[in-house]
């Protein structure tokens, strides 16, 4: 049986991360350091590759217009200097923000405001089975009252108080629904990780991990550092 180094390394790394659940330790610290370094290097590698494909290669064919972005981008370095030219780093920032914010605002008014208002007022409220009509009213009531839960400039008195209570009821319903979704997503991630360990040769490492954990607990207990934690 051939040894699958990839799966063994992967399983070991997963367990090294999980050791943080017991407490912060040298194994976790090493994994943390490795990952922080790797993630920086990965972004640099991807960015360099993108630049090669989008700036360098077209540049060889005479399209030098993309070099403008390099000149602008280099200005970010000015952030690290102290002196009268430090402000230059705000030029690329302003380019990125200006385009990003402008595009976001224009589309947001269409997608998140106009479309949503339209969707609310075109819900069928007559001529359907009574159950469906009641359900449709639920949508409208929820939209209207939830908007008032986050109303800041007037105190919650009178009618607004009752609207807020209904709004909070809907908000809690939604949070409950989202809570279920959150849990399911997190568990899926855990399942994917345990699949890697348990379905391959990584399962050989599981007993080793538990032995190491037991030794760690024993030493902590001897030193009197084992506490009930909640």
């Amino acid at each position, binding site marked *: 049986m051939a040894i699958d180094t990839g799966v063994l390394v992967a399983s070991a790394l997963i367990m090294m*991360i999980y050791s*943080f659940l017991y407490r*912060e330790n040298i194994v*976790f*610290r090493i*994994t*943390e350091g490795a*990952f*922080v370094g*790797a*993630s*920086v290097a*990965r*972004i640099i590698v991807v960015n360099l590759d993108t630049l090669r494909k989008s700036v360098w290669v077209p540049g060889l064919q005479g399209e030098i217009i993309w070099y403008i972005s390099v000149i602008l981008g280099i200005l*970010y370095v000015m*952030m*690290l200097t102290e002196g009268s030219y*430090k402000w230059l*780093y705000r030029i690329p*920032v302003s380019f*990125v*923000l200006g385009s*990003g*914010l402008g*595009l*976001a*605002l*224009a589309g*947001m*008014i*269409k997608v998140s*405001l*106009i*479309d949503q*208002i*339209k969707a*609310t*007022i*075109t819900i069928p*409220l*007559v001529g359907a089975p009574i159950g469906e009509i009641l359900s449709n009213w639920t949508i*409208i009531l929820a*939209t*209207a009252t939830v*908007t*008032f*839960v*986050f*109303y*800041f*400039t*007037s*105190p919650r008195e009178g009618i607004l108080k009752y609207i807020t209570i209904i709004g909070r009821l809907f908000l809690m319903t*939604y*949070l409950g629904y*989202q*809570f279920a*979704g*959150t849990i399911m997503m997190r568990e899926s991630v855990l399942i994917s990780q345990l699949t890697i360990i348990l379905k391959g040769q990584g399962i050989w490492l599981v007993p080793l991990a538990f032995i190491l954990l037991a030794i760690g607990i024993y030493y902590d207990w001897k030193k009197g550092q084992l506490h009930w*934690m909640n």
Partner: protein
Amino acid sequence: MITIKSGFTSSFIMFIAFFITVMLTYYLVSKGKKITIRKLPAIDALDEAIGRATEMGRPIHVTPGDSGLTGLTASETVAGLEVSSYVARRCAEVQVPMYITTPNAVVHTLQTDIASQAYRLAGQEFDITNSILFPYWTSFAVGISGLVYRENVAANICIGGWHGICLILMETASRIGAFQIGGTAATSQLSWFVACCEYYVLGEEVFAAGAYLSQSVADVSAIWSQDLFKLLVIAIIAFGIVISLTTGSDWFSNLFNI
């Protein structure tokens, strides 16, 4: 040659209306109209957190969240930066070391500058190696957890735009008994802030937090204009429903298609 794209007339009118509302409220507030924003205990607790850190002689960790400055989370990140700026100023005054972290490269450049400026105003020098970029969500999660644990921070302030990893940070911080103030508008994360933080701002309170802290004309007027516009949206919806219930025609909803 200027032609409006089909289907965008209503959006453009809405944009103009919102723009005018923002400008008008700005004008009125700058002319002295008083707008009171609901009290936010979490923001008042910032000083308490810094005070605790001073007593204990331990550092403070502050982060404007794991989001960027474009898109939906922009306003939360801005509120987070506002809080960071305030915390940096106070930390410089009482000489408590402060760590500020982010996964977003653009936010990182701004936050470093903001912290340096805040320190300079207090006559101190900010060590820019304390402004750390972990350029990736998960490396951010593990990086700040390690940082918070090893530096044994006294307080962890995490108001901003969060997507998912906030719980890793907050669980770690609560393990070492740090005082936590957090907040976000991301609904998927709200319950974890309630679970882990001593004080929290939830939902759109985050937008108000920035205004509450700065009390600047622009921020206060923005909160007011948002509230006014919410009323307008509700009025439009109510009017549309009344129209469709009474006349049965859909001319009003068709207005939104042009």
